[in-house]
């Protein structure tokens, strides 16, 4: 499993939310645009700086729906690798536990 966060190219992210919006499982269909943006920002922050149980509960709850299918990589217009980002964020959450 690739856990090198630099390969996620997070610096390219425009926080559009397409990665979650077009999740192949439809796991985020109920979120509106700003919630999608907040989710991307939250997952990115966890991947970069670690999980804060007291503040990131909702983000974790949503990220738990992600099964790392990787379709998100195909819809990102900014060439971010959301799959790696999500993997790293999940690992950070595991580490905190």
């Amino acid at each position, binding site marked *: 499993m690739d856990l090198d966060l630099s390969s996620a190219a997070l610096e*390219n992210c*425009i*926080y*559009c*939310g*397409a990665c979650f*919006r077009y999740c192949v499982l439809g796991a985020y269909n109920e979120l*509106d*645009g*700003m919630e*999608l*943006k907040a989710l991307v920002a939250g997952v990115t922050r966890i991947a970069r700086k670690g999980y804060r149980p007291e503040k990131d509960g909702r983000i974790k709850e949503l990220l738990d729906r992600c099964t790392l299918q990787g379709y998100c990589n*195909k*819809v*990102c*217009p*900014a*060439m971010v690798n959301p799959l790696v980002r999500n993997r790293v964020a999940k690992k950070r959450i595991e580490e905190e536990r």
Partner: protein
Amino acid sequence: MTDYTDLKREVWDRDRCSGCGACAGSCPLEALHFRGDDNPLFDGLCSKCGVCYSVCPRTDSETSVGVSRAPENSDNIGPYIGRYFARSSDFQIIKRAQGFGVVTSVLKYVLEEGVVDAAIVVTADIFMNTRPMIARNFADVRKSAKVKYIWAPVLSKLREAVLDESIDSIAVVGVPCAIQALEMISRSKLKLYQKKLKLRIGLFCWEIFRHILISEMIHKELQLDIDPRRIWMFDIRKRKLVVELMDSTEYHIPLETASRYARKGCNYCVDFTSEWSDLSVGNAGAPKDFLSVVTRTELGDGIIKDMIEKGLLVTDSFDESVFSLAERVNKKKKERIRNFKSG
């Protein structure tokens, strides 16, 4: 943080929208759509990512001003490498296409030589309802071969082409506003678009007409009831819009009259010759039976030179005095900069 409401306020509500389709074709959440001849409609989710605003060449942003108003300051037709008078050498292409088949031949060449995998062009149904399409081969290109002067949001097809994994490189055929939007995209954060958009083929354009031209103008101005299915093509000759029917009958409408049916956003365009393109083509300034071709990048010039060498394009000797018409029209269009200043 910008979003589509900024675009609405600065562009749509001020009638500056050229209808290039870049906002719709780049919205990551596919929330902007074109219906009819009007401005884009918002219908979906917005995460305020600002992409739609960042790719529009008609906003008040510094980048947009630099791209869409810069031609005001460029000399004559803008930067170029080569200028040619050319036409296709393939009679079958000339017969079916407009502009002596130059663009059709170039598209055939770039698709068959593997310069690009696909091209975004405009096609029309039998009622002359235009729409953008992704052409992957010459058969597709032929469907777009005689469509001209009727507006379609060509770049609204961008997202579909860019996200298609079987397409690595894309050419776009567009009027100056669309080419300006491609330049905006090249300066945006849309890395995937930048990676795939390879070739910009610009068309000379004074203004583009709404579809209402067919349904209303012909009826009102010519007092004719022409079935759109009988229209073979539109052309502009000697300051007249020419409506040519299948039976070769021609109707001529003064451009001043036809202009009333142009998109309002065209009044904010100061680029006649698609100055941000790799190569641009148009009737203006060309001798009879040829088209003016201006190459502006190494890629564009290389394509035209190779096509001439392979006999795919026939050229006439370039005559500065003949071409000067294109420069005069270009200069005239640059005067529209006053519309930005006043509105």
